[in-house]
């Protein structure tokens, strides 16, 4: 099992969710986050005061998936969330030691 953590542009969220649902990914956790990468920030001007905004709003998606689905999920996110412009985000993949469904006590792949 793998944990996929993807940082994407906020307006891409719906497309990514739909595409992942078609792959039979059973669940997603979404968080509104801020951060910076190569895109850097922008400046805002309020009368005479100029502020550099370093952290831009992004969406963080977390999904636990079966190893068999991993490549498809990564491909899908990369294809759907891509605009080709700087700031499209990143996908992080990590090993997942255990998953437990709280209601039934199922573990491992059965709990995904």
């Amino acid at each position: 099992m793998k944990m996929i953590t993807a940082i994407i542009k906020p307006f891409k969220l719906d497309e990514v969710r739909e595409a992942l649902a078609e792959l039979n990914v059973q669940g997603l956790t979404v968080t509104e986050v801020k951060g910076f990468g190569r895109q850097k920030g922008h400046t805002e001007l309020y009368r005479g005061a100029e502020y550099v905004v370093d952290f831009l709003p992004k969406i963080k998606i977390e999904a636990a998936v079966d190893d068999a689905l991993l490549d498809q999920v990564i491909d899908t996110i990369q294809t759907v969330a891509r605009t080709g412009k700087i700031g499209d985000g990143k996908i992080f993949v990590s090993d997942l030691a255990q998953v437990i469904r709280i209601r039934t006590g199922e573990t491992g792949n059965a709990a995904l």
Partner: protein
Amino acid sequence: MNRAIITMLTAVLAFGAVAPAAAAPVVNKGDTAWMFVATLLVIMMSIPGLALFYGGLVRAKNMLSVLLQIFMIFSVVIVLWCMYGYSLAFTGGNAFIGGFDRVLLNGIWDPATAAFSSAATFSKGVAIPEFIFAAFQGTFAAITCGLIVGAFAERARFAAVLAFVVLWFTFGYLPIAHMVWFWPGPDAITDAASLAAATGQAGWLWQQGALDFAGGTVVHINAAVAGLVGAYVIGKRVGYGRESMAPHSLTMTMIGASLLWVGWFGFNAGSALEANDVAPLAFINTLLATAAAAVSWLAGEWIVKGKPSMLGAVSGAVSGLVAITPGCGFVAPMGALVMGLLAGMVCLWGVNGLKRLLGVDDSLDVFGVHGVGGIFGALLTGVFAAPQLGGQGIFDYVSNKMSADPYSIGKQLLVQAEAVGVTIVWSVVVAFIAYKLVDAVIGLRVPQDEEREGLDITSHGESAYHS
């Protein structure tokens, strides 16, 4: 503005002795109704107009502190106004401060005889009920004191703000209001001697011939200077210049500025004190100058900074409102147009170049907008009031028409500059002493950790927004 306080009982007798021809002033229901509307509009300007305009410009953690300061300053000043403020500003005393005849609003209503006194207007034989006159002028005092807090927003101790306002209202606002606006009214004026007698009872700057229709000196310059001194004495916000202090809701600011604009018709057109021909003149000037200033500020910003902004548009509108205030009942609409266009550009400089020059953390640019716009408007009033430029000139109450003496722009400009100078000096001195006094007794600033956490939680125990 003006003000003549005439008691039905005493004034007619007193003035009657001088000028037997003067008829008892008549109260008209239309005038009275208009003054109710105007007074309500000025209340709306303050709460919620000014409060939202300022509130949107601070960070979310200080939203309630600004709203509360303005709400409570309004309330405290109205109480003080009715206790002694009205009497000291708008009754005869000496040239610098009024008397105690109307302390606790005494003498306006006599329940025994069911007699209500009236206040003179700018027209002979026309009066309005003195209670609505007192209420109208009270809202001016309240919004003036409220304007100040924008200069030291986000760091002042709440108790210190209130204590300062009590002092500054008493020793700063009241004398200036009396000096600029008090006169006994036109009803007794029939010849040169009675004109001299009436003028002799007026406030000092009125006697000098200073023109201030709705409060350029009394309200805007006065408050802006007090604010600037406050920003200087209290010091910069923690993190100023290093951390982002971006406005948390320009949506609120736009709503507030729009309420200010609408309310300002009560402020300016209401200052005619009656529903006569001058009120619509002040109305159209307030409409036109404000729109022109919004256009010129936005255009200037677009050219210089590259983008037209919402904050720029509303700041421009407010600068136009401020600038046209002293002249709105004296200048012609095309004069108002020019004043508005110039005010937008001058105040844009006020919040950029001048602000950097001053090096003071005037949080919400009270001086850059109200001070610069107020000074500019007060001076230009002397120019555009000239009949040569379409203005009304000086009204002669002896001949009951425009003065036959040639209007000298240079001379009037000097008089206007004198009024501006006196207001600045007076307000600086009173404000400085008041801040130092409050600092010594209460402490002007909250502790640094409270400032970092935000005044809403640390000073007031509540939050504006819950996520």
